[in-house]
């Protein structure tokens, strides 16, 4: 068991940084919130302005998980993968292209994914979050492969998401580029 006696609450418009040593359970917690891991005990509850939301519905339509694997197929064109990820999550192709433009990926769209750098892949994965608005962003090491300019852009994007009433829960080792409350896990 990784996490014991753990409780945290995240409000709309707020960001929280999950901090802890390697192996402390940050990814596990994110995946449990996303519903991919069923906790042995305890609950993850979601609530909207109108009251509690059914967890399955909240996860399917209200939550984005960006793991440290980006789910992009290396053999396919970046444009195809962007199009699939955006439309699968409920966005439109046009919104996907706009997000890619915002993230500075227009010239890379016709390349196969394997030709993209780690930072470009991460930004391509992020385009899905911009193109289909969902309240809760679960981010696993979102900054790791990004350069300074991309980190600043990421901060801008996150700040906008929060300003629109969104929530961010991010597992990080470096500080997030936005004001965020630290949730430390893994301390006895």
């Amino acid at each position, binding site marked *: 068991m990784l996490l014991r006696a753990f409780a945290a609450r995240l409000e709309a418009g707020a960001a929280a940084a999950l901090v802890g040593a390697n192996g402390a359970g940050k990814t596990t917690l994110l*995946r449990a919130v996303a519903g991919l891991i069923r906790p042995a005990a305890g609950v993850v509850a979601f609530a909207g302005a109108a009251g509690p939301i059914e967890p399955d519905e909240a996860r399917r339509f209200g939550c984005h998980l960006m793991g440290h694997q*980006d789910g992009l197929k290396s053999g396919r064109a970046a444009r195809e993968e962007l199009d*699939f990820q955006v439309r699968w999550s409920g966005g439109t192709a046009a919104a996907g292209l706009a997000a890619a433009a915002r993230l500075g990926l227009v010239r890379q769209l016709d390349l196969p994914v394997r030709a993209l750098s780690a930072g470009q892949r991460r930004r391509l994965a992020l385009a899905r979050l911009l193109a289909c608005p969902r309240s809760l962003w679960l981010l696993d090491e979102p900054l790791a492969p990004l350069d300074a300019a991309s980190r600043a852009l990421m901060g801008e994007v996150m700040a906008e998401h929060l300003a629109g009433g969104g929530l961010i829960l991010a597992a990080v080792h470096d500080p997030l580029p936005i004001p965020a409350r630290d949730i430390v896990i893994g301390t006895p």
Partner: protein
Amino acid sequence: MSAVLVLARRELSLAWGRGGGALLAVGFLVAASVMLPLSLGPAPAGLARVAGGVTWVVLALASLLSLERLFERDFEDGALDILALGPLPLEAVAAIKCAAHWAVVGAPLALAAPVAAIALGTPPAAGPMIAAAAALGGLAFAFLGGAGAALALASRRGGLLIAVIVLPLLTPPVIFGGAAIDDFQAHLPWATPMALLAAYALAAAALAPFAMAGACRNALG
């Protein structure tokens, strides 16, 4: 509905490229059918007698070739997370993946199977019946093979596991399909084995998605 189309388009394109796709499966079928007369001896009467059964065994093995990686890539690169958090339940995702595999690999195999059977000595009049039976059998192969692929996720010797789990499940369609060809050759009514084959394929398509979704959830958690 649009989510179904979006996923189906992706899966068709992935199935085309997965492990050589249709080309490899059809190539395997042709190569195996060419090698058989070499090992069994070229006497036409003997070949014609085993043609139906042999075609079905080769068909089953050819369908399994690229199925092993049906879920594995998505599991390894994180795409399965995105699929699991999408608008469709995992059961539907799994069914669409298998259906796409069937369309890309099973349909060309269904067209190639009569050619192989006729080349081995089945009367040409049996061609359309063999194609229809192979299409039905391919449906069973795709869904059962997909269930094996999902169960083998997160285990290291996946290929071996699939062979052990899936091959016994593929025996009934092989029996029914071979029997349909034999009955046709013997001028007996072949509707019964065909009906059994169809029932088995539809049952596989109806039940396997639940097994696949459960196995995927288990592998993700």
